[in-house]
């Protein structure tokens, strides 16, 4: 039986409260992990670790959060993602909503792509196949 979205959100919220020390009310679907919830680099490792445990899933490196796309000169030019970079990201990360970002694919704006909803989408794809 597929896991309903509400249940996924509840468990993701619980995970983020433990990982980031934020209040439950702050963890809304639209909250960004870096900007709104104060996550730093080590927290992304911790979040992946906790999600694997909470949902009994395996999350390969670079699957939920991108790991080294910014190191590829074909994908980044003048501080912006190239069309090739954007296409690669979109293909490998169907859980991320790129609709606003693609108008101005500034790499500094990439953290805004990762919201609570992004994690919920990812986990849903994963557990519900």
């Amino acid at each position, binding site marked *: 039986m597929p896991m309903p979205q509400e249940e996924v959100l509840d468990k993701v919220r619980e995970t983020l409260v433990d*990982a980031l*020390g934020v209040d439950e009310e702050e963890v809304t679907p639209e909250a960004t992990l870096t900007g709104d919830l*104060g996550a730093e680099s080590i927290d992304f490792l*911790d979040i992946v670790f906790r999600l694997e445990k909470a949902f009994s899933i395996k999350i390969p490196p670079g699957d939920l959060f991108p790991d080294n796309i910014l190191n590829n000169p074909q994908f980044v030019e003048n501080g912006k993602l190239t069309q090739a970079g954007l296409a690669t990201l979109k293909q490998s990360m169907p859980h991320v909503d790129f609709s606003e970002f693609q108008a101005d694919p500034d790499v500094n704006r990439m953290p805004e792509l990762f919201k609570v909803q992004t994690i919920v989408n990812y986990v849903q794809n994963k557990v519900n196949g």
Partner: protein
Amino acid sequence: MRRRVVITGMGCVTPLGHDVNSTWEALLRGDSGMAPVTIFNASTFPASFCAEVKNFQLPQPLAAGGKHQHAGRHTRFTLAAAMEAWQASGLGESGHFDPDRTGMYLGSGEGSLDFDNFTSLLVDAWAGNRLNTVRWGELAFGRMNVHRETEQEGNMVVAHLAAEFGLRGPAFNSLTACAASTQAVGEASLLIRRGDAEAMLSGGAHSMIHPYGVTGFTRLTALSTRNDQMQTASRPFDMTRDGFVLGEGASILILEEYELARRRGAKMLAEVIGYGSSADAFRITDQDPQGEGAAAGMRAALADAGVGIDQIDYISAHGTSTAQNDSVETMGIKAVFGQRAYQVPVSSMKGSIGHLIAAAGATEMITCVLALRDQVIPPTANYRVPDPECDLDYVPNQPRKAKLETVMSNSFGFGGQNDTLIIRRI
């Protein structure tokens, strides 16, 4: 003329209380911080009691916002101690606070390991007589906690303080065992004297009350095993002493350049006038039996302060309640002070509070400042049976009113590390 360094704020979290006043009052009453270990089940350990910080939670606003969500136990103590000291000093709100010229020098011990996960990995990857690193690799990355790995580094307490208070000045941490936070206060003072900073958060933090820490001290036979008399187990300078009682905690002092404190009208609590550091040049776990290393540190501090032995009104001893430390320290004091040693009161607060390891020296420095403020010497608790090798005036069991202008504080650590500070009333 050299720059002067004053203390303008203090804070602590100790086995006797969660702030300066409650700790000081408990010390003067001769309360005991000792109780059975609750952090883990130590019922089969030779010493099943210790001096834990009790019922501690990170106070608001430090707990809000998740900045310190994964901070180690000793870091949490330090944040609370630093908040108390910082607010008492008033520096942050004074209009004279320069973040780039305000630094940190702590004597903070290492954090605790990710002990349970580490142990379970060893069990699962153990191949009879050696570690199977292939199996380890299959398991470790999914099991070890990334935060615990980072937070156990020695400089992490400094990092949390910097982030909390917005301090961008010099950032140091000394890891010189039980002498660490006395050394930190001394070195922080030197930074201000040199002009490298105009204010420093200094002090120390440590918590070794975990299976690994207690095992280490047990193997060294350093701990008192008087489980049936835990309240009186720590008895510095007493003939029947059988080891120290492991404590934990954090203490922070705000050090400022005198002119800054004067300009902003800060309340000056005491002046740091002398600091000496020395090595025993002897053995790792034995002190120089003549106390020559300890004496060298005390002499260096006196020379730095430019005061003679006649001007020292009180000595806050390292006084751990181990057979060796207390007699060697006594010998060191006699080597420096000669006949004067018999006239200077010497006391150790470890009878009440236990041994806070890296945090011990800074906690004792706070009590020295309070001794100057209140003109009272805190007692050596649980002193009953005189030891012919320890024949000084140890201020037994009762606080004593005294005229105090200048006091000395000693800290010694494994490896033969000796540090001494001298402060003066201002």
